[in-house]
């Protein structure tokens, strides 16, 4: 890791001012940034520690929804009784992620901004071509080992998978990111790579995430987060699904449905086609399985990751059916 200077920001404004220095990067829990600094991807000259800004770590849950401060720790949100009751998928997405140690360190804001685990992105010495790190340099992943790369939202410039779990749950339940004075839907906050994979978020100069807001809904209350991976734990998802289900008074008609996928796309991937196909229909295994296949419409496989296209719809179907008591 190279040497850097360290500044502590006392307020969001202070942070914005310090972050304007060339080579400055914001630092909260530090787990992503230090990891990337060790592998030579992040080369900050100055770290601006926002961890001491007061008032940014609160978790408030009421009938209208939840507001989570950007500096709340993953563990605090995962263990929050109100969150577990009103947004089980969100709490589960956090408790299944990383390790207990990292969950005690990492913040919600930092979690959203974590970078891809694409091994080509993370090894600049051996793979100089990466449009995310160095726009226009190419993509070493294409034609490489692609078992964990994305099948949805890819472009010829980048096939890197968005690694996070929390954002998948957030995008399913119409959450929004607060960037100081501005609020933006999580779904719009993450940008598909297109021709500009280096630009991953709709975050402007001088802006930082201050909070995440999730509206309450019956579907969020009856929700789950399923994660499939080779290892039982501490591994990024081969595929994950955040699903919320609201049934009508008959207990069989799907009134509301939220579906989002992780581990298979370049951004947290909302599956509206599945939702639209099933809303208003009766909850039946056959129709759920058929509609779940719409989750991977438009998917493009690389050499080693075609299994994700089979896996993701099965995950969606299992999640829906288990929420409906049919699996």
């Amino acid at each position, binding site marked *: 890791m*190279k040497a850097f200077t360290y500044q502590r920001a006392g307020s969001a404004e202070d942070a914005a001012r310090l972050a304007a220095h060339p080579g400055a990067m914001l630092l909260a829990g530090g787990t992503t940034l230090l990891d990337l600094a060790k592998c030579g991807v992040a080369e900050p000259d100055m770290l601006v520690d926002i961890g001491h800004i007061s008032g940014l770590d609160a978790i408030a849950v009421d009938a209208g929804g939840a507001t989570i401060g950007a500096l709340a720790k993953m563990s605090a949100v995962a263990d929050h009784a109100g969150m577990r009751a009103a947004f089980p998928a969100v709490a589960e997405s956090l408790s299944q992620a990383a390790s207990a140690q990292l969950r005690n360190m990492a913040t919600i804001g930092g979690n959203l901004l974590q970078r891809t685990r694409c091994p080509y992105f993370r090894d600049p010495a051996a793979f100089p071509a990466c449009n995310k790190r160095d726009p226009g340099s190419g993509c070493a992943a294409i034609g490489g080992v692609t078992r964990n790369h994305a099948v949805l939202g890819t472009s010829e410039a980048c096939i890197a998978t968005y690694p996070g779990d929390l954002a998948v749950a957030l995008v399913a339940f119409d959450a929004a990111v607060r960037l100081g004075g501005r609020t933006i839907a999580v779904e719009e906050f993450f940008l598909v790579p297109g021709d500009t994979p280096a630009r991953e978020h709709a975050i402007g100069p001088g802006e930082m995430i201050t909070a995440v807001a999730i509206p309450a809904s019956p579907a969020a209350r009856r929700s789950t987060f399923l994660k499939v991976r080779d290892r039982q734990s501490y591994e990024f998802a*081969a595929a994950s699904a955040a699903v919320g289900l609201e049934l009508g008074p008959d207990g069989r008609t799907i009134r509301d449905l939220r579906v989002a996928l992780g581990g298979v796309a370049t951004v947290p991937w909302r599956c509206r086609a599945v939702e639209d196909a099933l809303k208003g229909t009766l909850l039946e295994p056959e129709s759920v399985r058929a509609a779940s296949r719409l989750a991977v419409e438009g998917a493009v496989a690389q050499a080693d990751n075609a*299994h994700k296209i089979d896996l993701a719809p*099965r*995950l969606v179907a299992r999640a829906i059916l288990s929420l409906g008591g049919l699996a």
Partner: protein
Amino acid sequence: MTLLDTPRKHGDASDGGAIGARLSRLDGKLKITGAATYALEQPVDGLAYAVLVPATIGAGRVARIDVAAAKAAPGVRLILTPDDDLGLQPATDWNNVRASDGPYVPLPRDIAYNGQPVALVVADSLEQATEAARRLAIAYEEGPVTPGLDSPNAGEGSPLDQLSVAWGDAEAALAAAPVRVEAEYHTPREYHAAMEPHGLIARWEGDRLTVWEPSQWTHSMARSYAEWFGLPPENVRLVSPFVGGGFGSKGFSYGFGAIAAAAARRLGRPVKLAVTRPQNFAAYGGRAATRQSLALGATEDGVLQAIVLRGASETSTVGTWVEQVGAATPLMYAVPNFSARQRLVAVNTVTPGALRAPGKTPSAFAIESAIDELACAVGADPLEIRLRNYAEEDPQARKPWSTRRMREALAEGAEAFGWARRSREPRSMRDGHQLIGWGLATGTFPVIRNYGEALVRILADGSAEVVTGATDIGQGTYTILAQTAAEALGIPFERIDVRLGDSALPGAPVAGGSKLAGVMTGAVQKAAIAARDELIALALNDPNSPFRDTGANTLILADGRISAPRGDGPVVSVGELLGRIGRERIEVRRDTLPDHLQTPEGRFRAWTTMTTVQGPTAGDYSMHSWCAHFVEVRVDEDFGTIRVARMVSAFDCGRLYNPKLAESQWKGGIIMGIGMALLEEGLVDSRNGRVINNNLGDYLLPTNADVPDIRVIDVGIPDPHASALGGKGVGEVGIVGVAPAIANAVFHATGRRVRRLPITLDALV
């Protein structure tokens, strides 16, 4: 009376004695409090910090390295590149062969693999060295890369005729057999991934070198350093009292050690080189990838008629490592016709090395999968087919087994597992979405014998000390040597101290090949008995001894006290006796070398090479450890995820010196086998030969959550031919056979036969 009713004598504490007791680790308190100091934690004054710079191409050469910017960086003290003549000489290999063709060049200009060291940067701090290393401008000329064993350009490789094994006419018998199963099995590159990364601290004082480096073999590694630098052996001391896991990777000195020690000599300052976690995937080799085409011919009852194995394994373009895929194949079953051949394919990788049960592990994957396939082909139970083909003697060496309690292992394992309740058909057991499969496979590891040396001191306070240069890499050397001394001396275990892990101490072989316990308990027992006899002789003869006039012609040592056999004389503590006769200590050094090695050359060769090793069939018997693994897997029918739900494994490893430690070795091997079966694979980029998952986030090791309930059963009996105290090896046999047991269980669960490791969800989705 059935087999299971046979009275069994394990030679453990239940039969009486300190050896065989379930004692806790002698070094437990040091490790549990953070006080155990591993090599790179050694406090050494005035350290400079080195960073290794690895090649980022898979083949070719370093055209030039511009060091100007790096040299100008703050704190930089030294940069070594292929432009520097390090002045090193070749070291002797484990066959006692020393290359004579020119100098040893650990920083060559030619690049044979991605990750090969191309420079070393030394600075006052690690950050300064890291930053300066980034400023090196390295220009390569890239050559064509052969990334792996199965690459289209890898070719067939060259035959290893010395490994060819044949009896009968296997090809003809196979062709004539009514039932044939034939398939190709693959195992990938796997890595040791010890929690303690490699590295060293090298300190020169004049022409004397001290190296703190994790080691499974202090004497041999010290010899390498001495030979590289043209020093007399006694000028190099390699120190390694605690080792954070080795698994075969820490038995040898590597190029990075030579480079760092050369830097320390040039600088006149101690140098610490911590090999980074990613560099640990190329600074030394893991298990070579293998491919086996295996055919079994059998009668319609599944009685084997022929086995034909055609195998291949990878090595590097600059060194030879043979992962012997036929290591287990000829041992497991009685077969009248057999043929095995292997080829070696050179690819652009670091030279592979020994990883827990080398050869035996991939070998067992193929033969133990194939026998399961044969059982399916003839409609036999997988346990029954193993009994039908039971080898009553070593089919290859045609020698009787010293001990082979495989029948007992199968019977007791099956009983504990509930194997009799298994339904034969694949996909016939399920629990909701989970398909349940039960699988079985067996394993073996040879008994390898060698020689050792130990010093035993009885001290004035009545305690005793065992001293040898052998190492404890976690398997429990400290503990079992204390137990051995305690039993031989009659001094309580708690009063025995053990010093290990230093090439300046008495000689010992590598902590590898599952032989160190057998070798060193023998040496310690010999030294301790000699020390005890000396003490007794003094007690009987010294004018100041209370036993002098008792008329006894021998004495008893027990619980740290000496008494006459008839029990009516004086009873004094060992310390009191030494005080009365005016002795500070009794010190005895003994080795187990045969006469022909009792020369300076012979001793040196015994402690630093493999040339004095005796294989499993060197004597009148064929000697091996054995095991049988029973596995339940649960496979999600939609997701293809595989969970090992429970395991029962039964072992015949002869006498166990400490069952608590032996069981831990078995379970550790089993869990590494679970990793091999389901998780572990070095992923290589085919364009530049880079191992892209060179970190513990992407190279997946089993975690607590991947580990099921594992029950281990000891069916062994003391094997007097295998070692002085009757033990066979325990450290490696546990991994052998786990992967095929899991693959067989996956087949039983899903009906899908997976012949390529690891078995991941994409093979089953």
